[in-house]
């Protein structure tokens, strides 16, 4: 299996700890990841808010590159990129006219051969069987697994996990000794698309999420999406304004939690980069 790695812009910028922790966990488990050469931005929310063609064309270039570079699958840790790449692949396969236009715009065709996997799928398929022997100490904490919207929806396109009350992340957390809680905001949107332009709304939506996790006794929120992470971690001032009582609940990437269980250093996992300090071991 030749797995390509598409970090996307966030993992090279604001969320570089996600990048670091994905690579660190993969390396620790002996899994090889090769970054797609010369990749470009997927366009994210902005592109599909402004132009359908552009929103398909940007991911199409990435997919065409991956295909040319001989990858069977591409790991896309960023949930937003994962969503955009998956939707674009779906649109290209479904709409011949669009595929032709996009192919011409990009200057490369994509034939649909590359499988797009998110970090949870990747971990389940490649890492889960390797974990038992490698865990140094259990990540024995009550955690709220937060999937957000982009990993599970649109379900017909992504076909990943259960639409309401997904379980894959909960399963991974149990595997490293954590106790995932049953809570109500697993797949509710945190408002990432408006993070900069309507911080007020993002504060409110993210406050609902953190408030519920805290109220139900979670010690940390675990995420698999850099948008969710930067909202829940960096927008804490705005969030706390919307909560009756401010919260300092930390927000971890799933790979950071696994990394801790594998005994990797906090620095290797980029934990020092968080705005809200992570004290959990």
């Amino acid at each position: 299996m030749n797995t390509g790695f598409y970090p996307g812009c966030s993992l090279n910028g604001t969320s570089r700890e996600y990048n670091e922790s994905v690579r660190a966990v993969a390396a620790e488990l002996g899994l090889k990841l090769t970054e797609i050469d010369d990749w470009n931005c997927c366009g994210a929310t902005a592109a599909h808010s402004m132009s359908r063609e552009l929103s398909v064309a940007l991911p199409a270039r990435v997919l065409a590159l991956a295909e040319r570079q001989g990858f069977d699958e591409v790991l896309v840790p960023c949930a937003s990129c994962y969503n955009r790449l998956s939707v674009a692949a779906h649109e290209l396969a479904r709409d011949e006219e669009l595929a032709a236009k996009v192919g011409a715009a990009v200057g490369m065709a994509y034939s649909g051969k590359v499988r797009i996997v998110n970090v949870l799928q990747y971990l389940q398929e490649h890492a889960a069987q390797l974990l038992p022997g490698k865990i140094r100490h259990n990540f024995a904490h009550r955690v709220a697994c937060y999937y957000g919207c982009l990993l599970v929806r649109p379900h017909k396109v992504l076909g990943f996990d259960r639409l309401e009350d997904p379980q894959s992340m909960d399963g991974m957390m149990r595997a490293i000794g954590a106790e995932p809680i049953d809570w109500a905001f697993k797949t509710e949107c945190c408002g990432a698309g408006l993070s900069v332009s309507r911080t007020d709304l993002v504060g409110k939506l993210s406050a609902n999420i953190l408030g519920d996790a805290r109220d139900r006794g979670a010690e940390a929120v675990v995420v698999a999406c850099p948008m969710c992470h930067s909202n829940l971690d960096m927008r804490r001032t705005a969030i706390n304004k919307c909560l009756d009582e401010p919260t300092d609940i930390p927000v971890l990437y799933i790979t950071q939690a696994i990394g801790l269980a594998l005994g990797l250093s906090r620095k290797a996992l980029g934990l020092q980069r968080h705005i809200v300090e992570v004290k959990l071991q």
Partner: protein
Amino acid sequence: MEDKKRLSIKLAEDIGVDVSRCYQCGKCTAGCVLAPDMDIAPSFLMRLLQTGTEKADARVLGSTAIWLCLSCENCVARCPMEIDLPAIMDHLRELSRTGGRVNEKARPIVAFHKSFLDMVKHNGRTYEIGLVAEYKMRTMRLMQDVDIAPTMMAKGKLNIVPERLKDNGDKVGRIFANTIDKKD
């Protein structure tokens, strides 16, 4: 001529969504995290599209709701008729922008998207400092987020210089020229 065409017809032709299938159960609104903050809640927006009047169409294109929609897809996931509301929102945004109907209050959102795409156009990837700088210039919200930027810088979350593709983004620039910036 083209612009006089009713939105419902455009939606059917352009993206294949039939607004008459909506029977106004409101489940989209009930599950929408931003419905309370929208000037037109999703199901109400569907109703306006169904009426097919010029006034209703203008109200939809000039709404803030279409710009607030986060594309979280909760609505379509639960819609009993599986009406692709996020796709409708995407298309309405495109029509609103190209038709010059963007609501005053939604300008910062559009500005952000534009700034974001400009970064991508010129570099092939996003570049947060450049993005925020451009966004601030567009919106004149100069003081926004000045509190967290230094922290982010210190934590190594911001790149000082933009990452670029091998050819300085020419390939990606071409994609823009052939899609969103296409003149026809």
